[in-house]
C-alpha cells in the first residue's frame, strides 16, 4: 500500500495498463508534457511515442482513430483534455463507439476507455468546468464511470481497460490532488457497476458521485454532529447503475437526497430521483430532494461558488426531508 492522490493513482493505473502491449494512450499533450494535469507523467519516456501518442488538436479524430485501433485489436485509452472538449467527438462516441457491437452483432467491438477530466470549482475558463455526464449516461452501449477516491480511481481505471465494452471514464478535476489515501499495490481492481456505501445511517440517505462526494461527505459529518445519522452512497459507476444498492438503502432509510454538480433539468440526478420514487415509493417519508447545479452555464471564477452546491445546501435538503 502506498499513499496516493487520485492523480498519482491514475498515473499508476495507466502505467500498469500499458504493460499490456495492446494498450495505447493517446490525446492532446498526453506525451511529452504528461498531460495538462500530469496524469500521464513519465509514461511517454517509459513506453515511447508509439504507445503514448501526442495527437493533433482534433477530438473527433482522436476518438475516431482510437475506435479503429480498438476494432483492430488494441485497447486504446483516449484522453480528452477537458470534458467540455468532448463535444466535437460526440458523434464518434454516440454513433460509432457505442454502437459497433450492436451493428455487427458482436463481430466487431470497440473496447476503449475515454478519459475526461470533469467538473468545476478551480476557477477555470469557460468550457473547462463541465459536468455533462447525462449526455453519456443516456447512450446505450457506453459504460460511464466516475471515481472519487484514489483507490477507486486506480481500481476502476484498470477495470475500464479490461472491460470488453467502451467506457467513458470521468475524472473530477477538483479531486485530483485534494485527497490522499492508501491504495492497494499492483493490479487492484474495482468492479464496474457497483456503488460504494461509504457510510451507513438510518435518518437520511445521501447519494452522490464525482466531486460532489466531497461536499456530501462533509455534510454527512456535520449532520452527525447535529445528531442526524446520514447514510452516504458514492455511485462510482453511473452506467450500469447499481440499482439494488440504491433502492435497498432508500427503502431502509425512507429519506433521500441526491447531490450532483450538473445543471438540474435532465441531469443524472433526475434518473436517481425517478428510480427511487418509482421503486421505493411506499417507503418514502419525504419527497426526494435534488441538490444540483443551476440550469445555467457554469460560471467563471468570480461566481462559481454561487453555482456549486455547498455543504450547507446538502444539509438544508437533508433537514427538509426530516421535517417533511
Amino acid at each position, binding site marked *: 500500500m502506498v499513499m496516493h492522490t487520485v492523480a498519482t493513482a491514475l498515473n499508476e493505473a495507466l502505467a500498469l495498463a500499458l504493460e499490456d502491449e495492446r494498450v495505447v494512450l493517446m490525446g492532446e499533450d498526453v506525451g511529452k508534457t504528461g498531460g495538462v494535469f500530469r496524469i500521464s507523467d513519465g509514461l511517454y519516456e517509459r513506453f515511447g511515442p508509439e504507445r503514448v501518442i501526442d495527437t493533433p488538436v482534433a477530438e473527433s479524430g482522436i476518438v475516431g482513430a482510437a*475506435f*479503429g485501433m480498438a476494432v483492430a485489436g488494441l485497447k486504446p485509452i483516449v484522453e480528452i483534455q477537458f470534458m467540455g472538449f468532448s463535444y466535437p467527438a460526440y458523434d464518434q462516441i454516440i454513433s460509432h463507439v457505442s454502437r459497433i457491437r450492436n451493428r455487427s452483432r458482436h463481430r466487431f467491438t470497440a473496447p476503449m476507455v475515454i478519459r475526461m477530466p470533469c467538473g468545476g470549482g478551480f476557477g477555470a475558463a469557460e468550457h473547462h468546468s463541465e459536468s455533462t455526464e447525462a449526455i453519456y449516461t443516456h447512450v446505450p452501449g457506453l459504460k460511464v464511470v466516475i471515481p472519487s477516491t484514489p483507490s477507486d480511481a486506480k481500481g476502476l481505471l484498470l477495470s475500464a481497460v479490461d472491460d470488453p465494452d467502451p467506457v467513458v471514464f470521468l475524472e473530477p478535476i477538483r479531486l485530483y490532488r485534494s485527497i490522499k489515501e492508501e491504495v492497494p499495490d499492483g493490479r487492484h481492481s474495482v468492479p464496474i457497476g457497483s456503488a460504494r456505501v461509504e457510510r451507513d445511517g438510518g435518518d437520511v440517505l445521501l447519494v452522490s458521485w464525482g466531486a460532489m462526494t466531497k461536499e456530501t461527505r462533509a455534510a454527512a459529518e456535520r449532520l452527525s454532529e447535529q445528531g442526524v445519522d446520514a447514510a452516504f452512497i458514492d455511485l462510482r459507476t453511473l452506467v450500469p447503475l447499481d440499482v439494488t444498492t440504491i433502492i435497498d438503502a432508500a427503502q431502509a432509510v425512507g429519506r433521500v437526497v441526491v447531490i450532483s454538480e450538473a445543471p438540474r433539468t435532465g441531469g443524472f440526478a433526475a434518473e436517481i430521483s425517478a428510480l427511487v420514487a418509482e421503486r421505493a415509493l411506499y417507503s418514502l417519508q419525504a419527497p426526494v430532494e435534488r441538490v444540483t447545479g443551476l440550469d445555467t452555464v457554469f460560471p467563471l471564477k468570480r461566481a462559481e461558488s454561487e453555482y456549486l452546491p455547498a455543504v450547507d445546501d446538502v444539509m438544508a435538503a437533508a433537514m427538509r426531508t426530516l421535517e417533511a
Partner: protein
Amino acid sequence: MRQILTPAGELLDDPPCDIETTRRLYWAMIEARTYDRKCTALQKQGRLATYAPLLGQEAAQVGSAAALRPDDWMVASYRDAAAMWMQGYGWDLLILGRTGDERGGSPPSRINVLPPSITVGAHMLHAVGLAWGERLQGSDRIAMTYFGDGATSEGDFHEAMNFAGVFKTATVFLCQNNGYAISMPRRAQTASETIAEKAESYGMPGVLVDGNDVLAVFAAAAEAVARARSGDGPTLIEAVTYRVGPHTTNDDPTRYRPAEEESAARAADPLERVRAYLEASGAWDAEWQQRLEEKSAEALERAVETAEALEPFTRRDIVAGVFQQPSDALIEQGERHGW
C-alpha cells in the same frame, strides 16, 4: 485524369493486368449490376428498406477493391456493396442488412470489412485507426475506405486525412465522386477544382482517375495499396464517376438535375467499355455474357432466399447487442413483454 480504357474500350496505356484478370473484373461488375437491379426490384416490392443504388459506379468499386489482399480492412458506405462483396462480404448479408436486420452487419470472422457506414464522414477515421492499429501490432494489413464527394465536406474527412498524413497510416482514401451529394452537385460542395488536389494539404499524393474505367481504377488503387503496404503512407484517389440512379429509392432526381445528364451517363456505361475491350481482345462472346448473367442472377436469387429465411429478430436479440454482458436491468427489459 488517369485513363487506360477509353469509353469506346480502346487501350491508351499498358493495362495493369492480364486478360484473364480483366475477365474476372468484368464478371464482378456484372454481379454488381445484378445485385443493384435485384435490390431496386425488391425495394419496389416492399421487401427491402430504402436502397441506395450503385448503378454506374461498378468500375470504381470493383477496380479499387480488386487491389486489396483478402485480409485487408475495408470501411465503406451505404452505396458500396460491390466493393464490400469483392472483399468477401456476401450478397446475402448485404441484402439482409437492406431488409432492415442487424445481422446483416456481421460478416464471418475472416472478413475484415466493417458493416456499411450510414453516417457520412465519420467512417474515414476508422480506416485510419485500423491501419494504425495493424501497424502497432506488427501487421502489414492496410485499410481502404470508400466515401463520396459529399463526404469530403465533413470535418471528419479533414481530421482523417490529417491524421493519416501525420501518422503515415497505411490508409487508401477512395473517393467516388459520383457528381452529387443527394441534390448537391459537386461544384456546389467545394470550390476546389478537384477533390484529388485536396491531398496536398495533408502531405499525401492525390490521384485523379476515370472512375468508369475499371483498369485505370485498378492501376491507381494497386499503386496506392503497394505504397501503403510498404510503409510510405496514405493516398487519396478521386474516382470520377456518376450516380446514374436516384440517391436512394426515396429520391427523385428530376427535381435537381437535367434528364440529358443522366442519359449521357447511362450511355457511358462502365461495363460496356470493358466488354468492348474484351471483345476486341477476343475474350468476350455473347454466350459467355449470357452465362455470367445467369450465374449472377442465380447467386442473387440464393442470397435473397438466405436473407429472407432467417428467423425473426427479437426483443431479446436487440437487448443482447448492447454490451458483451447485458446488465440485469437490460436483461429485464428484453424479457418483459411491454413495460
